[in-house]
């Protein structure tokens, strides 16, 4: 990168101008172009959203702007990135010298990354990490820098900023960390802020808070923002202009309203078609699957059919959960006495009927997974009874319990993490058949595996591949095939579609519904994504701090939410419609902790029936319990 070129950019021109940028990975012969000839402009003070499915080159583009691709083994093979710093002339960052790059990074252009959990260095204090930038770029003394850091923390609305300076990242929640990250990025008043999926890993209510903060600060400081996301709802709320990327190329660029109103490129259309829109099911009593548009060989194609999911049979529940409680011991004294417990699940009761989907919603830590895991016998419950098909699980013999593991299957959130990386997926799919001795003959097992792969839309030859050789959506299909292998009656799907791109998510949701229809499956569908829940579920249970605060049919809960927490949850969902007014929703505060000292039991709130089958917790109780 020699020969620093200085270009003259007239005033009034864009702040950042990306011109035919291409980025390659790997050696010259086997090079892989992750970004191909991408061009776009960012105007001062405006927000440009970059959208596209996973792997489309969004992150690489953003790294390339700051030339951080140098550190990932990437190479900018062509193009220029013209940036207009606050002082001096416009500069092509692609050819800028290291020293001038470093003076721009963190100073003129700052970046926020996706994972707040891993964006902060765990071994340095928050104060140290913010001050570092200030000392470097503004030449402040350590003390001055810390004072500024404190002010910054206040700016991102973190309470108790002074104390926070001395805290380490692990002592903060995800939302707090992301706010620290924002404070750090804004420390030197950058002209341009690049935010690479800054809220994807966060809870919906926290996401809403973070988006608000970014928007406010942007207005206050006049910062331009490149906002990278795959969530069209977020785009609708944040962006002025949108760039759509697909397979490393920019396929469309337009003001935000235009994109939503009249998408031109087939991919943009496919993307928008797959976006679940909250409220789209209003007035319909049963879930419905609808076709999705996918791009096949470059052309859009509609797959799937419209079908009303009338599969539920309310004669006799398959699963009855009564006052189930699960707690974890955490704090221990030196002598091994337990001092604190996590009250992950407290006296939860619900039923699931054959062919029915019960959605369990609620924010991180509310106890959803714990319920699933307890049902799957991965955790021993502390109390309560669970009946499957009328039999009490607590009084089952170990053989019966083993059999139960065949009838109930669990699909985990992260399909990659839940497949053993050292075995082919053929092995993984066959495993339930082998351990439950469903088939003995090797050939028969192979045939069955092929059949299962076929059912979830995979090819027979995929059986020989390893998990890392699949895309995320394919992996989730493998997990579903694996779950189906033992002919279960109930499948617990724990955030099974949360990590997927919207279009793939839509396909998997359709697949699950299709399988439900074919095999009369029941689902316990655990998620925090209200839009998906609306599409898939017959009934919904809302969890808060280990207890169900509202349960009823989907229609009842979504159209007539009674509990304040349910309403808050619904309100926090970004709506993929730029035409809607960008209301400044005030969602403040963190979710309280479920950890309690021993002896300090949470209050179990009472429920009242607001309409037939629609139960809501009495809020007065709840407030007292949380206090």
């Amino acid at each position, binding site marked *: 990168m020699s020969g620093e070129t200085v270009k003259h950019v007239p005033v009034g021109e864009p702040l950042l101008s990306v011109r035919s940028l291409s980025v390659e990975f790997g050696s010259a012969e086997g090079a892989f172009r992750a970004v191909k000839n991408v061009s776009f402009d960012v105007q001062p003070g405006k927000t440009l959203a970059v959208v596209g499915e996973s792997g489309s080159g969004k992150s690489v583009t953003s790294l390339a702007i700051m030339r951080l691709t140098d*550190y990932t083994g990437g190479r900018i093979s062509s193009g220029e990135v013209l940036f207009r710093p606050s002082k001096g002339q416009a500069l092509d960052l692609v050819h800028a010298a290291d020293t001038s790059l470093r*003076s721009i990074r963190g100073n003129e252009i700052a970046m926020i990354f996706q*994972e707040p959990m*891993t964006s902060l260095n765990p071994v340095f204090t928050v104060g140290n990490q913010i001050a*570092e930038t200030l000392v470097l770029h503004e030449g402040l003394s350590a003390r001055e820098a810390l004072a500024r850091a404190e002010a910054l923390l206040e700016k991102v609305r973190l309470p108790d900023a002074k104390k926070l300076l001395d805290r380490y990242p692990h002592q903060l929640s995800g939302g707090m960390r992301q706010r620290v990250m924002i404070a750090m990025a804004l420390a030197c008043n950058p002209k341009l802020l690049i935010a690479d999926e800054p809220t994807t890993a966060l809870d919906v209510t926290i996401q809403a808070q973070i988006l608000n903060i970014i928007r406010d600060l942007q207005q206050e400081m006049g910062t331009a923002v490149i906002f990278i996301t795959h969530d069209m709802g977020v785009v609708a709320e944040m962006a002025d202009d949108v760039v759509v990327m697909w397979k490393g190329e920019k396929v469309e660029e337009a003001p935000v309203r235009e994109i939503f109103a009249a998408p031109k490129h087939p991919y943009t259309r496919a993307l928008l078609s797959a976006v679940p829109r909250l409220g789209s099911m209003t007035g319909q009593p049963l879930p419905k699957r609808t076709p999705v548009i996918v791009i096949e060989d470059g052309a859009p194609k509609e797959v799937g059919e419209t079908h009303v999911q009338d599969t539920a049979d309310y004669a006799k529940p398959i699963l009855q959960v009564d006052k189930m409680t699960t707690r974890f011991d955490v704090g221990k004294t030196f002598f091994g006495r337990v001092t604190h417990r996590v009250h992950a699940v407290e006296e939860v009761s619900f039923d699931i009927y054959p062919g029915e989907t019960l959605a369990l919603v609620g924010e991180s830590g509310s106890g959803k997974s714990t319920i699933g895991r307890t049902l799957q016998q991965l955790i021993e419950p502390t109390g309560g009874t669970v009946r499957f098909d009328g039999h009490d699980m607590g009084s089952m013999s170990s053989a019966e319990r083993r059999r139960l593991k065949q009838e109930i299957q669990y699909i985990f959130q992260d399909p990659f993490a839940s497949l053993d990386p050292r075995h082919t997926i053929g092995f993984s799919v066959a495993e339930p058949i082998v351990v439950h001795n469903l088939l003995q003959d090797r050939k028969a097992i192979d045939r069955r595996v092929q059949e299962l792969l076929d059912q979830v839309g995979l090819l027979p030859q995929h059986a020989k591949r390893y998990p890392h050789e699949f895309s995320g959506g394919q992996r989730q299909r493998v997990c579903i095939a694996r779950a189906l292998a033992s002919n279960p009656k109930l499948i617990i799907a724990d955030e099974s579609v949360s990590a997927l791109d919207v279009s793939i998510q839509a396909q998997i949701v359709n697949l699950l519904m299709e399988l439900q229809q074919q095999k009369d499956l029941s689902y316990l569908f655990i998620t925090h994504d209200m839009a998906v829940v609306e599409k898939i579920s017959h009934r919904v249970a809302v969890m808060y701090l280990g207890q169900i605060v509202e349960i009823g049919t989907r229609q009842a809960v979504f159209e007539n939410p009674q509990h304040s927490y349910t309403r808050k949850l619904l309100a926090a969902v970004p709506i993929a419609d730029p035409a809607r007014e960008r209301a400044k929703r005030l969602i403040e505060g963190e979710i309280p902790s479920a950890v309690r000292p021993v002896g300090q039991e949470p209050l179990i709130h009472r429920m009242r029936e607001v309409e037939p089958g629609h139960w809501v917790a009495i809020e007065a109780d709840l407030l007292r319990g949380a206090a």
Partner: protein
Amino acid sequence: MAGFILKRLLQAIFVVLAVTLIVSFAIRLSGDPAIMLTGAGSVTEQDLQNIRKALGLDRPFAVQYLGFLKGIFVGDFGRSFMGGTPVSLLISKALPATLLLAFTSLLTSIVLSVPLGIYAAVNRGRWPDQLVRVISLVGLSFPNFWLAIMMVLFFSITLGLLPPSGMEGPESFIMPALTMAIILTATNVRLVRTSMLETLSQQYIMVARSKGLKDRVVLYKHALRNSAIPLVTYIGLQFGGLIGGIVIVERVFNWPGMGTLAFDAISARDYPVLQGSITVLALFIVLINLLVDIAYGLIDPRIRTE
């Protein structure tokens, strides 16, 4: 934290007790010091009895062992069978020599392996990486006495730069420390490289870079401290091995340390010296491991709060 240290101290006491028991017992299986003391001459059984009595070896093992334990608590390890010098005196001279050497070696190894490991990690898969890995393995291919003698031949005899043996001044440390460091470095480079690769792929490293920090700051401030945990763990584990291996290095460099002391004590079946020196060594190894655990907390605040 206090509870943790207390617990570790209790464990340490258990470990040291077990070590003393094993050593005291085993050394008694390995030969009779009375015969050692009488040498090659003609001795009668009566002569041997006399000597055993003089050494207190006629008492049952349990009594001898308890006596030894009691002694430890008042800092009295008994007297050498050879010459009657108090063991504590011998140890008080030898221990600093060994510890100094051990720490110098560790330090040298760290000074060598950290930059090399980082260099290899940064250049992963390219020739500097391969070169570092291959060179570091050379240290594993020759026994330390061989390296030591070679070094003496080169630095002392050919160049006449360093004293061939003994502990005289700072220059005396160079060769022994280097000998041990070369061997430690072989594994440490790998370790640094591995954990550095792990760390460098973390997002906070990219964040640090996006702030405009210099490479040196990114590598040595942000990355190194995060990579240090496995290294520190391993160094704790190495310490025991180091003390074991020091026997040979001390011998070649005629280093008046614990290794020499213990080795001579084994050869002479000098029970008190052996028991005393191994107990003290074990105590130090355990102590180092304890320090390592505490160091964890200093390096990584996530561990501190646990």
